[in-house]
């Protein structure tokens, strides 16, 4: 699937009102904002053209459904039932009769129009403040028809940003490991999907064990661990071309890879003679640098968003704990001090928090702490779960959970879950197969 896109962003009537409607995403949201998402209006000719190309009878409704589902899943919005809408899409888009929308208790309204122009899909949408009776935002853009789902995600991002003041996370993808088979003989493949579960694609065949894929900030490349030829090593995969190459020429297992924030380096662990240390490799000049040099296990490195610091997992104190250090390996400082074992530290894209997995008294927790180790907050507890990954706006975490129906291990399944930083809105992320090791991309438009 070629991932070409073409966007012309035209800003029409950017009337700025002061926001009467505002959504606070820093607190648990028990009052989702009632929002009406009107199907995008579409003329008959465009309808026919899109149906021919995309096999969708009404692309205007399809796009607005993408928006609606995104908003609902965020837990912050309550998209109202379309059957109650009084105004037709064509009319609402020009000038909504706010009394009609007020009647159904909508506080915000999204309307728009989609058209087939020069073989492309052109969309305009508007966000309205129903209570104030004013237009909040109006945008238009053009893309290839096959990108119609991304149109829905981009509209959601723009609306989310306008109403919360934070960047959205809807025009993104998740890379993960698809799993099948009994636990004693799991078949694992790399897979990628849109953040809402659509456009799932397998990237490897399942012939060799693959683990822990992570996106590059440029979104085109992925790094992961592969047991190709029974030699566990870190690899790079180009999503567009499918080309894979091993990272460096290490005489032993390399694992736990991530990209640096500028996408130029891979940071990973290298294990030799019973010791695992952290190394980086520059992807351009191939220079390898050693970052930690300690007889303990040092692994799961993750850069801070400005690239100046690294958080990692080490058992140098006797048990798995979380540490931070400068990107050159100096000033190593332990930051986890609670009861239990800590692992999988990941630095938030906002720079303010580190998410982690904690194991204590037989239970696994996903939690966050400040980068100095204070303010530890556990978000969710389960018999087995691990490996949080941040949404690009640093407000949502995706992780995975395993369940069994009995202690014999029957009915084993692994699934992706997400939870807001507030600890609310914990929900299952649907995948075709069992899934683990999720990693969230940055916003695709960047």
């Amino acid at each position: 699937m070629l991932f070409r896109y073409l966007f012309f962003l035209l800003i029409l009537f950017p009337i700025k009102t002061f926001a009467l409607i505002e959504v606070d995403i820093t607190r648990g949201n028990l009052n989702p904002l009632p929002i009406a998402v009107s199907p995008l209006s579409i003329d008959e000719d465009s309808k026919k053209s899109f149906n021919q190309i995309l096999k969708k009878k009404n692309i205007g409704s399809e796009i607005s459904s993408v928006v609606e589902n995104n908003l609902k899943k965020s837990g912050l919005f309550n998209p109202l039932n379309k059957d109650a809408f009084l105004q037709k899409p064509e009319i609402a888009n020009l000038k909504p009769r706010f009394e009609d929308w007020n009647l159904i208790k909508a506080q915000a309204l999204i309307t728009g129009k989609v058209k087939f122009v020069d073989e492309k899909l052109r969309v305009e949408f508007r966000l309205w403040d129903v209570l104030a009776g004013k237009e909040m935002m109006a945008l238009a853009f053009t893309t290839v028809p096959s990108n119609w789902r991304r149109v829905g995600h981009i509209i959601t991002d723009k609306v989310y940003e306008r109403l919360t003041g934070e960047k959205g996370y809807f025009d993104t993808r998740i890379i993960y490991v698809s799993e099948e088979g009994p636990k004693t003989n799991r078949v694992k493949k790399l897979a990628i999907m849109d953040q809402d579960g659509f456009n799932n694609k397998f990237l490897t065949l399942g012939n060799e064990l693959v683990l822990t894929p992570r996106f590059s900030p440029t979104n085109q490349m992925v790094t992961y661990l592969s047991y190709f030829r029974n030699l566990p090593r870190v690899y790079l995969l180009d999503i567009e071309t499918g080309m894979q190459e091993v990272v460096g020429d290490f005489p032993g297992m390399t694992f736990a890879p991530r990209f640096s924030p500028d996408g130029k380096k891979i940071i990973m662990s290298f294990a030799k003679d019973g010791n695992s240390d952290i190394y980086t490799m520059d992807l351009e000049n191939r220079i390898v640098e050693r970052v930690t040099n300690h007889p303990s296990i040092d692994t799961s490195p993750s850069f801070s968003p400005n690239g100046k610091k690294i958080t990692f997992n080490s058992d140098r104190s006797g048990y798995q704990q979380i540490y931070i250090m400068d990107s050159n390996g100096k000033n190593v400082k332990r930051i986890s001090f609670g009861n239990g074992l800590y692992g999988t530290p990941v630095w938030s894209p906002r720079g303010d928090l580190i998410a982690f997995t904690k194991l204590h008294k037989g239970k696994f927790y996903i939690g966050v702490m400040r980068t100095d180790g204070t303010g530890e907050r556990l978000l969710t507890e389960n018999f087995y779960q691990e490996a949080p990954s941040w949404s690009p706006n640093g407000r949502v975490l995706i992780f995975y959970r395993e369940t069994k129906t009995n202690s014999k291990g029957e009915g084993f399944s692994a699934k992706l879950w997400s939870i807001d930083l507030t600890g609310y809105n914990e929900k299952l992320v649907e995948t075709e197969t069992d899934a683990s090791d999720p990693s969230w991309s940055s916003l695709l438009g960047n």
Partner: protein
Amino acid sequence: MNLSKILKNSFMVLIASLVLTACATQKKSTNLTQGDVYTGTETVEYLASGVKDRVFFATNETVLTTASRETLRKQAAWLRKNSKITIVLEGHADERGTREYNLALGERRANSAKDYLLTYGISSDRISVISYGKERPVDSGSTPLSWSKNRRSVTVKAN
């Protein structure tokens, strides 16, 4: 209640509390584990008559127990007798840990076994090491006994 009954009841309570505190240690021994190191033979295969193919570890540990060292001495003897054989040591961890740390733990366990074999004169170019972390359990259950069977280093013939 008369005095003898009171004394008898107190005695029972005392015994009961002693038994209970004895059970409250972190790593329970059962007839199949010592501490929480598996000592059974289920899942164990044999490289040759009397030569077990694997050694087991306690939770989060990579040290060899006395029983492990005995198994490895027998493996070393067999390897000295069959000098053309090369082996792979596969290190594993149980599922009660994070994935990447478990990969490192498995590597360390396999190297513990390798280092011991080296001290018995087996050349290091006959031995290679691979870690599977928690990816290849032999027992998919979620009991301490299942987990103990998975914390292992297995010696596999490479040629």
